[in-house]
């Protein structure tokens, strides 16, 4: 799926699709290797959530959200909170036993299929195997999903 660079998961890799940035910024990034088709990886997130370190062409570059949200990448995994409506597979759940248990009770488990039926405002609506649930953004950020 195609998402803004700022929404990638830590450690994940993606391929650059488009740079929707002003020409001056685009040229600077170009010299650093930010071109279509190039592989990019999110290496690290700063203590407060921004900026982030990306690895491209073997170099680590720091970018803030004001730039990374305008770079579109194609990646396989994304936190659930950024998923558009559709069918996905749960790939990782970042949380303790209690969290996983609560999710299992609504049908959300690693390896299982889920469908996102609504993603607006503060809640994300899920349908997992017939069981409907609504998760908060914070919870959804800890669930990593991939395309089927």
């Amino acid at each position: 799926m195609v998402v803004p660079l700022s929404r990638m998961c830590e450690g994940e890799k993606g391929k650059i699709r488009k740079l929707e940035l002003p020409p001056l910024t685009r040229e600077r990034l170009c010299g650093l290797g930010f071109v279509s088709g190039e592989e990019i990886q999110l290496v690290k997130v700063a203590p407060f959530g921004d900026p982030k370190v990306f690895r491209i062409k073997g170099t680590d570059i720091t970018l803030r959200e004001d730039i990374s949200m305008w770079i579109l990448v194609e990646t396989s995994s994304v936190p659930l909170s950024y998923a558009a409506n559709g069918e996905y597979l749960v790939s990782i759940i970042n949380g303790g036993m209690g969290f996983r248990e609560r999710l299992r009770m609504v049908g959300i488990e690693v390896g299982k299929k889920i469908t996102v039926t609504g993603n607006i405002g503060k809640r994300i609506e899920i349908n997992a195997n017939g069981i409907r649930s609504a998760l908060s953004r914070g919870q959804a950020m800890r669930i990593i999903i991939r395309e089927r």
Partner: protein
Amino acid sequence: MEKHRDGIESRKSTIALLGNPNVGKTSIFNALTGSRQVVANWPGVTVEKRAGVMKHHNHTVDVVDLPGTYTLGATSLDEKIARDFLVNEKPGVAMVIGDAVNLERSLYLLLQVLELRGDVVLAVNAVDEARKAGFEIDKNELSKQLGIPVVVTSAITGEGIEELKNTLVKSTKSSSHVHYLFSDEVEAHLRDLSERIRGNPSMAGFDERWLSIKLLERDHEVQKITGITLDYDFSVEIAETRYKYIKRILSTSVKGKEKIGWNFSEAIDHVMTHRFLGILIFLAVMYIIFQLTFTISGPLSIMIEELLGGLGRAFGGFIGLDWLRSLVVDGIIGGVGAVLVFVPNIFILFLALGILEETGYLPRAAFVIDRLMYAMKLSGRSFISMLLGFGCNVSSIMSTRSISEPKERIVTILVSPFISCSARLPVYVLIAGTFFGARAGVVIFFLYVLSIVITVLSALLINKLFFKGEPSTLIMELPRYRKPRLSSILLYTWNKGRHFLEKAGTIILGASVVIWFLSYFPSEGTGSFAAMIGKSLEPLFIPLGYTWEMITSLVFGIAAKEVIVSSLTTFFGNLSISGSSLGAIRTLITPEIALSFLVFVLLYVPCMPTLAVIKNETGSYKYVFFSVFYSLAVAYIVALIVRIVGGLI
């Protein structure tokens, strides 16, 4: 690949060094020129220019170190300088220094240079690190593919430097350069544009193909020079073609399997940029640096003071004329001494900063606290400069050199004087101690907090005033960590420290003589010109309630803020009835006036060395004037508020 003749004449005796930042360009420059180098500024700007001379086998060649850039576009000041130098000065050889571990990106710059001219040499540096990582670079194959001489080097081990020198000296006048082909559509446009340009006689000194490529990339400078602006933009396609070509070259010239798993740098970074540990480590590093600076420079400063004292006595001994003696001892030695006492402080601070920069830690520190700085429309890099301000504003302003965003740099420079430097501390201790006794500590703490608050507010205000409140852009590379070389660090420290001495020293010397003159004539102390100035300014300060002695000390404090202490003790010492020379002023000045005075000292005009450095680093007097008036205004207003509010409590 075609070979293409151009008609550009080259001056044989200069070598220009280009390369991405962090590839070791400076190390190579040092290796080529040794200590025969001069650091100055590129004319009209505050970007460092390094130039030197290379002597090798009876050849003497000039070497110029151009600023590190990723491309030869015109988007940043560094790029402009590099490109302008190549285009206008036409050096005999353009050497591009690449990073063996990141060759792909280095070659992007190389290709841009090749598009512009011939007589290019490629030095692939850090080849020892590449080997450790599992790559082997076939320089002959690279050379064949690119059509230019290629040398592999390691600035750290010294490998390849001899060969590099031989190659540079041998560089023949082959004014042919190699280029590669873009897509048919782009090539067609290039042919058309080249035709148009060739017809224009004023473009005779330039290579048409290069100009055409730049026009298709919508390069502003080239558009201006040629007068041609196109509707279409092929920059993306051109960039992609270059990278495709690079990938092809690398597939045959670089062999070896990349190691999976972490390398040394990544391992370190896991902790250095750790979610929790990152900031803690940063604070710890800052603490260690500050403590070391104060602790070590303490005795060294004492030594210098003693030396100067001895010098003063020696001179005083054999100068008969009273006024001349006073001029030499109090004016010159005293005044300049005020600067020299700073020297250990400054040098150690720069030494520490140099180590942080050489090892590669600085970008990590900036990364970790960036979020906090973003609220002030600045970035992490500024934070480090500001922290230095707690030691000395001069070093903090000088350290802004490495902030790449010009807007951010200026804001940081203008805001630095509000950071309470170590010179103001003696004043705080003296006044707070006299008026607030046991509570002195609280008062001083309040002053530091106020300093930070005003700094933050000023940053926002100045940004809004001068730059319409736009935040700066952050695109920062985190280079590999490397073992710092003692010689590089020492050279770095020496350059920065010498800069401080030259600039601050000359201004302070002049100011010291002037102040000495004002306080010595017509009669010392209360009958002097200085006192007259103080008394004449008294009406302005009525709302604040300062006496002429205080005002005069403030005037003297412009030379260096510690001078306020000695001035005050001199003036009030004459009035002392009881033991403490300042006990007398307790009757003249109320606590809230004293507090407001402290606030005034904290915020008012930056000291002379600081003003000198502001002029130097911003390159214009406009900012110096702004600094003076703005800080006076802020000082007056805040001091007034403090006095009024204090009177109510």
